[in-house]
């Protein structure tokens, strides 16, 4: 935790400095003796910087063993790789969704996540992915009148399939 705290504090300090620099560039429309638009962001900058420095110093001067912590984290690396893979899949899904539409992207994404959850039966994966994706689509489209993204390439993909 000590190593993580140091990383967290340093990252937050850098982001807060950027936030502070951006606050400097904000227009200062203000009446005399009244707080303007930069007032609250400056309070935030001061509080965050103070707390991050406290976190950094308390972690640097902590007596916990660095190496032991490192070994414990190594054992989790396989699980983390799986999580990273899932996140990349999620990002790809969100990037392709507006172009290909809800149905064409959700079915493979759903199957991908099922595999991530150690599901191995292909027919079960396929039927669940297709069935549930269509269920969501129809429930939101016709039940709640929410139009899910059709996708600009929806018709083109449909033509290729049919």
């Amino acid at each position, binding site marked *: 935790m000590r190593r993580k705290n140091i990383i*967290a504090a340093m990252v937050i300090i850098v982001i807060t400095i950027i936030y502070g620099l951006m606050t400097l560039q904000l227009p200062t*429309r203000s009446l005399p003796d*009244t707080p303007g638009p930069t007032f609250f962001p400056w309070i*935030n900058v001061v509080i965050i910087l103070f707390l991050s420095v406290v976190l950094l110093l308390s972690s640097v001067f902590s007596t916990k063993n660095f190496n032991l912590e490192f070994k414990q984290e190594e054992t989790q690396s396989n*699980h983390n790789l799986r999580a990273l893979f899932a996140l990349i899949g999620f990002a790809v899904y969100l990037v392709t969704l507006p172009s290909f539409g809800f149905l064409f992207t959700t079915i493979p994404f759903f199957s991908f996540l099922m595999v991530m959850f150690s599901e191995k039966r292909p027919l079960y994966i396929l039927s669940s992915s297709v069935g549930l994706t269509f269920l*969501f689509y129809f429930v939101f489209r016709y039940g709640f009148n929410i139009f899910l993204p059709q996708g600009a390439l929806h018709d083109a993909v449909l033509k290729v399939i049919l």
Partner: protein
Amino acid sequence: MNPEILIGLNQSIGLMVLLSTSIGVLIGLIVGMIPGLTISTGIIVFLPITFVLPPDVSIALLLGLYVGGMTGGSFSAVLLNIPGTPSASATAIDGYPMASSGNAGRALGIAITASFIGGIVSFLFLFLVAPILAEFALNFRTEDMFSIILFGMTIICSFSAGSLIKGLLSAAIGLAIVTIGQDPVMGTQRFTFGEVNLMAGVHFLTALIGLFAIPQLISHISDQTKLGAVTQSKIKSILPNVSDLKIVKTPIILGSMIGSFLGTLPGAGGPIAAFISYDYAKKISKRPERFGSGTIEGVAAPESANNAVTGGALIPMMTLGIPGDPVTAILIGALIVHGLAPGPLMFLERADFAYGVIFSFFWANIFNFLIALLSLRILVKVLDTPRSILMPSLAVLCVVGSFALRNNFFDVYIMLFFGLIGISMKWLDMPVVPLLLALVLGGQLEENLRVALTGSQGDISIFFTSPISLSFIILSIFSVVWSFRSNRKYKQIIN
């Protein structure tokens, strides 16, 4: 009788409202009993559905989910020794040993009955206290509102037990995020990077979906340990008998009172109320040595307390607009989406709606008791639902939910961004709830602070000269100290 009470009662017994309440309860029971799915996540996932429903129907659904979720948590606590919600942790101490010795039905029956009584007591508390508090709150000025919101934010302390610094940092980051978009007093654009979609700021519900649901999904992927053996060994008679009810009478009353009171205090919440009730029930019991080995008092006290918390938490939410726990913070967001700002003005301008919400809470407790009791044997089968179906469904619902909020795909990317923040915070062991609280209350905090300072021409003594403001500043200090003391006690009981 106040005619608005009758209108509210009438609103709550509409067919759609009752149907919505019962569906909410059913969903809540299911969400609550699945380990790893919190009530907050359940509400967040189902929130988009409520956007297309009338406000009374949608709030009834969410209240049902809240009440049902609290009870559902006890099912997996009793049957699996894994609390479905943190509030059910104390229930597992005696519930699981009871189930292991073949008394699963008896333990669950007591849990359901205690939840029902706790819920009804807290309904009475809500019904009697909320209108009085709302009337009093009408006299509040901006400096008072600032201090009240500050008091509301002291809830942060109870979620920062691991590290106060990290909890406060999380809240401060939330306050910084709130500054994105239009400044609430002068309308100046801040930190929008020229992006039109950011001009109205980050919608806090989009942020919530990302912060709560995505880290949960990822943590389930990285940790796929199998659940323990389900103790579903013949759930026999569920309805508690008269002799059992006599034994649990005092613990239930005690738990209901403790839960109702603690629910009103920001920073307390279900788990603390449940453990404190358990502790007191043990102290007043004639056979304290049996606690921990499967006694019905040990199930009754925490269960009545955690359900009583729900009504208590609705009091500050409805009268002051400050959340008593994370779920009520999300409920505030749901009300705002429907154009209803919770606070003292709600009882003045929409008293019929406010009473309707209170009565829907009553019906939610009635349905919770009936549905849990009648369909328990079927409901527990949900515990067998494979995660390979549940979690991908959750992921898709997150995407649909954030899109449906404003029919804007930009919100989906914002959701993913907050998901990454949530994952990072989890990795850093930084609590997410303070950030959530800051997102809910930050805008009002800034607005009231600036308006109060503008009125006093920059003189900060205004916060100490107003008796209401000063009282809430003192209460905030008390709340911080009290939160730490209760957390320490909670940890001692767990250990």
